[in-house]
């Protein structure tokens, strides 16, 4: 049998095509794309801090992409990672403010980690519950939940969590002892990145090496067949959403305790939707999510760097353009791959028929 080209190869090809298309748009600004990009890359590589920013930006994306990928394996759409992230962030900031300087760092971080996971899981679990108990459309409920949680966050930022100066809609900064420690000197890369890597591996193990993961994937392939096989799909819905919500909640923990050290209005508004794109880029594979998140982290830093190149006048929002084009190319590549597979399959059948 002929060796089939794997998904990664198609994905990498699609990413490259996407990069070329979006980079050539620089011609509209009467700039030489090759020059600009090599200049930007040189700048990023020559500066350890900026290089580290790639991993800083990738960290929450790993969590939110896992949050989408996890339910995706059960053929469920968790569009609400943004809200689950906010839920985690609210709990993380509240606990860090309350416990800062009162308990040892390791204990504090442990408590905050568990509680922000629980907060995200609560929001996610409710969505899964609505799905399993009332057959509600999980796509819609998860999307609406984001707005509800974000309204709750705005309310808290205006009232009980607001900074002591009561000037802006933001909290006070947390105590140094509540910071996630930096792991690479000279950068902002924090322990949360390692946590994200470990989590992704654990999610992979859970999905592919445990009975629960098998059940989740079975429900995803064909939930009626899974039911006949004795799997209660309703329970799987709740479990999958609980875990996915918790994963997104952990992003709240790493962003608050590792990067921002406070919570403010309109905090990281797009990591939920980028998570979806990354999960698709990785074809729902948890390990793939790591690499795809780092790629997006890189593109993100690239966009900012290009925006700061003196005299060239490139908008930093070019990052959205690049990421959008890359995502569309990857989505189309799934179609191309399917078509190619079908064609080779047909040819194989024809040959067999001639024999």
């Amino acid at each position, binding site marked *: 049998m002929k060796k089939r080209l794997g998904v990664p190869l198609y994905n990498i090809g699609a990413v490259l095509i996407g990069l070329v298309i979006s980079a050539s*748009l620089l011609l*509209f*600004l009467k700039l030489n794309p090759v020059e600009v990009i090599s200049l930007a890359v040189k700048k990023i590589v020559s500066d350890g801090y900026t290089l580290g920013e790639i991993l800083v930006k990738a960290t929450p994306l790993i969590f939110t992409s896992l949050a989408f990928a996890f339910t995706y394996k059960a053929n469920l*759409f968790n*569009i609400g990672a943004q809200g689950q992230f906010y839920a985690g962030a609210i709990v993380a900031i509240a606990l860090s403010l309350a416990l800062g300087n009162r308990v040892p760092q390791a204990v504090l971080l442990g408590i905050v980690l568990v509680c922000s996971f629980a907060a995200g899981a609560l929001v996610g679990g409710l969505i899964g519950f*609505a799905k399993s108990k*009332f*057959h*509600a*459309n999980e*796509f*819609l*409920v998860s*999307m*609406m*939940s984001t*707005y*509800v949680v974000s*309204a*709750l966050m*705005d*309310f808290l930022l*205006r*009232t009980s969590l607001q900074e002591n100066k009561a000037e802006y809609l933001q909290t006070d900064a947390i105590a140094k002892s509540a910071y996630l420690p930096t792991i690479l000197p000279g950068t902002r890369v924090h322990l949360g990145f390692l946590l994200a890597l470990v989590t992704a591996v654990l999610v992979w193990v859970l999905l592919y090496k445990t009975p629960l993961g098998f059940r989740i994937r079975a429900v995803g392939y064909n939930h009626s067949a899974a039911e006949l096989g004795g799997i209660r799909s309703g329970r799987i819905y709740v479990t999958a959403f609980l875990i996915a919500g918790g994963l997104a909640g952990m992003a709240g923990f790493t962003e608050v305790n590792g990067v921002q050290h406070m919570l403010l209005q309109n905090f990281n508004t*797009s990591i939920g*939707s*980028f998570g*979806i*794109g990354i999960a*698709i880029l990785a074809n729902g594979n948890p390990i793939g999510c790591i690499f795809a998140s780092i790629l997006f982290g890189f593109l993100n830093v690239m966009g900012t760097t290009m925006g700061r190149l003196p005299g060239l*006048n*490139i*908008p930093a*929002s*070019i*990052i*959205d*353009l*690049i*990421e*959008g*084009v890359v*995502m*569309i190319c990857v*989505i*189309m590549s*799934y*179609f191309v791959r399917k078509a190619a597979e079908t064609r080779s399959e047909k040819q194989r059948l024809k040959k067999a028929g001639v024999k």
Partner: protein
Amino acid sequence: MVNLLTRAIMMSTPLLLGALAEVYTERTGMMICAIEGIFLIGAWGGFVGTYLTGSLIIGLLAAILCGMVMAALYGIVTVYMKQQQVVTGTALNILAAGICAFFQRVLFGVPTTPLQIATLPKIAIPLLSKIPVLGPIFFQQNILTYLAYVLIPVAIFVLYKTSLGLTLRSTGENPEAVDVAGLNVNRIRFLTVLVAGAIGGLAGSFYTVGYLGMFTSGIIGGRGWIAFAICFLGNWNPKGVVFGTLAFGLADAVAIYIQAVSGHTIFPNELIIALPYILTIVLTIARSNLSVPAKLGVPYAKEN
């Protein structure tokens, strides 16, 4: 209070247009998850068209065109390439944000003062606008609002009383039957998406051409998704959409009103803003007789 309601009706216009477009496509089995991006690119197209030519009509046409281009891309990937609608929509929303910001820079550089265009004039309808209270609220609006008024009965009539409407609804419920009847399911879906793109683009242009007179990248700020939610809240029914839009419009107006009256108090204003979303969730959970189209979000593949 009258001012407040006038504003509520005005701000409801794009939501109503967007939600009607969404109802039509979802009835054929297509969710337009790119609606946020279509709104945004419509807002941008309307602004650029008006700014460059000085003509509001060309601006509106440009908005329609931009919306249709975005919708065509969405349609090609979801209808013909049969890819996930949610995912494609997410990608296009991000792409739209990038395109608008990037080409805004290409066209205008970094202007020292914000670029401004004239907005659509308010047209007072003779006689009707003289009715006390109701007149100023409903009949001193701009042309897009009147278009929305006209589209409501037209949308209801076409969807339920014409053979076109029947075809559209069948495409979402039972595409095989439509196929057997000799109609091209994918073409119906694609064309509906295109029309929805045109209306969505027009709805988006309301924010620039009809209201603010300028473009910022955050101008839509999730309102496309609100139109998307209203479609669900309105039970995939143009009549329901009118009530859904009023619920969102009123909540918005009341929240602003309370904030203006009470200043910064402990009163949970945000709850009122969140209320329509909570209502949507509750209705999704509580109603078992939702008329959600059977094949919503499912690509159609002909068996052969």
